[in-house]
């Protein structure tokens, strides 16, 4: 039966259209050639929909959306006769320009729909499809139907996870990966047998929403490799798809999730809502700035951008519109991509109010755990922002935190700092002092991640070697790596030093995998991957960041050891306890006990270098 609300009422240069449906936001393909467009902008005075044939410099039509098509602050229009796969779209907004009031509309700019489900402009990694300063990130249309074959988020209990942090491109980009589709979602799929053998059951992906690989203040040579400059929060990174050019990034990413799930591996996404790729004062108009700056960004009274993220701008996360936007995004990833959880970058910004100050009960943080779609979704916070606000252990029950105390304490102890001992014991217990209300599974225990040294570099370098980075940062000299090079800086032929490094890697992984809480490690650490002493490889689209799979042979013993540790952890529920209760078992032993040089004799509050612990 045909719908009665899908017939045109207006026409412009042969393109037929009518008032659209206000909800849902974004562009929705309704049938073979009809598309509904809907976009929010409270403070604008006019909005035009701009349509391009994909690849064209100039639009083929620009439709001024009449006032009668606007309900509340939402413009919507339904357009007929579109070859939707080969269309790109954007919006042109007019409105006030008064930065002190938070407004900076510019009708000369065409900007990306914040709710676009696919974005063109960087289909090929680190390559511009359209010139700088032009309308370079364009919305594309997708069909959201996908044959999931019965899949859904896996629902593995948080306490049972072994998390593997990974960069999609870095994981298989190097020749040594041996895969066909290097540096892509499909490349990850090719490595599933390896991941399964290793035994991890969750991948935490570094950002894979559409992001910007160019630095605004630099020429086009350096690469912003990590992905923390988000352009859009509903679309997968097209440059991570083998056939991103053909508009297949959505299908390719869904396939990756489906295949990982089939093999018992959950998918957590590192999401970056604290700032966007538009940077701060004088930054480019890509999307939010041109759609409704005052809604999306925290501004200072003098008309400059607040910068709690240290990345130029700060998203106005507790503005009700932005709050809904964030919830919509996360619901979309969970319901349409079957994502199992999120790691929230600089999460305290979720807890800042519209004045930038920390809130007592931030509604966004509370809303997520009580959302109808998201209430089973794992939420992990990076609990510190660049302005010194920490929320570790302070978010509601059900949230987890990256635990930086575990990270530093374990490394310090491993290199021989006796004074780190007492804190290490508390960390191995699952940090009850930090997570008493919610339990050990709220502590994501890690030693190495994308930030800082790899495991091997932790035992091979005393100092950061970041000379090749795009620019200097405090990480170069001010960050405490808590590392020890075992007697030589970097690569060496010294047999004793290399032997010690292997033992140290095993020591560190042993303590990590036997700790209560949820262990996480950085991809490649299981075979001694190196970043050649770089502790901040954000701009290294080179072998420094890419995994060197040749080392898997070289460090086979470390790999086998880590594999067994993971299996051991999985085989012993007592390590994965979900509470801090430490009663005696049927043999009358405490479930975990701590010992000094003599069994049962241990002063855990004074510095020590020798201790034993027993799970029972």
């Amino acid at each position, binding site marked *: 039966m045909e719908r009665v609300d899908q017939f045109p009422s207006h026409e412009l240069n042969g393109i037929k259209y009518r008032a659209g449906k206000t909800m849902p936001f974004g562009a929705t393909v309704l049938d073979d050639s009809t598309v509904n467009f809907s976009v929010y902008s409270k403070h604008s005075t006019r909005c035009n929909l701009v349509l391009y044939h994909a690849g064209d410099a100039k639009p083929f039509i620009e439709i001024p959306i009449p006032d009668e098509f606007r309900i509340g602050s939402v413009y919507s229009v339904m357009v007929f006769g579109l070859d939707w796969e080969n269309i790109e779209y954007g919006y042109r907004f007019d409105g006030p320009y008064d930065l002190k009031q938070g407004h900076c509309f510019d009708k000369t700019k065409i900007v990306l729909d914040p709710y676009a489900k696919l974005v063109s402009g960087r289909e090929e990694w680190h390559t511009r499809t359209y010139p700088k300063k032009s309308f370079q990130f364009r919305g594309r249309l997708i069909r959201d139907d996908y044959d999931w074959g019965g899949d859904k988020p896996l629902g593995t209990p948080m306490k049972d996870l072994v998390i593997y942090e990974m960069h999609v491109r870095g994981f298989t980009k190097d020749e040594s990966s041996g895969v066909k589709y290097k540096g892509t979602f499909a490349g990850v799929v090719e490595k599933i047998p390896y991941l399964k053998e290793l035994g991890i059951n969750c991948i935490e992906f570094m950002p894979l929403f559409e992001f910007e690989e160019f630095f605004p203040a630099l020429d086009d040579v350096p690469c912003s490799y990590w992905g923390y400059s988000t352009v859009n929060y509903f679309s997968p990174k097209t440059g991570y798809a083998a056939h991103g050019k053909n508009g297949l990034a959505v299908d390719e990413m869904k*396939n990756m999730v489906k295949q990982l799930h089939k093999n018992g591996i959950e998918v957590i996404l590192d999401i970056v809502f604290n700032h966007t790729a538009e940077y701060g004062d004088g930054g480019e108009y890509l999307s939010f700035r041109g759609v409704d700056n005052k809604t999306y960004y925290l501004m200072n009274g003098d008309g400059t951008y607040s910068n709690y993220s240290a990345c130029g701008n700060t998203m106005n996360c507790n503005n009700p519109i932005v709050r809904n936007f964030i919830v919509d995004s996360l619901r979309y990833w969970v319901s349409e991509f079957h994502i199992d959880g999120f790691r929230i970058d600089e999460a305290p910004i979720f807890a800042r109010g519209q004045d930038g100050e920390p809130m007592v009960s931030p509604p966004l943080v509370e809303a997520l755990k009580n959302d109808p779609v998201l209430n089973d979704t794992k939420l992990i916070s990076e609990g510190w922002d660049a302005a010194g606000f920490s929320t570790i252990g302070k978010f509601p029950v059900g949230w987890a935190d990256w635990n930086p105390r575990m990270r530093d304490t374990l490394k310090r102890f491993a290199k021989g700092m006796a004074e780190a001992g007492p804190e290490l014991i508390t960390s191995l217990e699952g940090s009850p002092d930090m997570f008493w209300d919610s339990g050990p599974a709220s502590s994501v225990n890690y030693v190495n991640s994308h930030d800082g040294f790899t495991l091997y570099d932790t035992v091979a370098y005393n100092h950061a070697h970041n000379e090749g980075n795009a620019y200097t940062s405090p990480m170069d000299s001010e960050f405490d790596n808590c590392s020890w090079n075992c007697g030589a800086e970097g690569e060496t032929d010294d047999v004793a030093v290399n032997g010690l490094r292997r033992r140290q890697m095993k020591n560190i992984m042993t303590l990590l995998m036997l700790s209560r809480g949820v262990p996480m490690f950085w991809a490649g650490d299981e075979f001694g991957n190196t970043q050649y002493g770089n502790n901040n490889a954000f701009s290294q689209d080179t072998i420094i960041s890419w995994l060197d799979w040749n080392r898997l042979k070289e460090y086979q013993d470390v790999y086998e050891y880590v594999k067994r540790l993971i299996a051991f952890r999985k085989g012993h529920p007592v390590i994965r306890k979900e509470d801090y209760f430490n009663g005696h078992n049927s043999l009358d032993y405490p479930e975990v006990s701590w010992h000094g040089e003599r069994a049962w004799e241990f002063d855990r509050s004074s510095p020590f270098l020798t201790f034993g612990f027993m799970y029972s």
Partner: protein
Amino acid sequence: MLNIKKESNGTELTVALEGRLDTTTAPEFENEIKESLSDVKELVLDLSNLEYISSAGLRVLLSTQKKMNTQGSMVVRNAREEVKEIFEVTGFADILTLE
């Protein structure tokens, strides 16, 4: 553009596609196939001359496969390397029967 050639042999139908299967041609393919499937037990799609398949194209193949699952079988034959790659990276290779 898409050329569709059909060859029927009892309950077996072979459909050869030539050109591109995308948003503009997928509806045409869908209509053509809908008309011819009623008594077919074995459907063969010959893709040797299919140059390109888009996201919309993948979906009509899949919906055809779903129809055939209820009345017989469907195989996809002679796909070119580029088309095969698209099946592979999107996971459609696992759902379709490729020969």
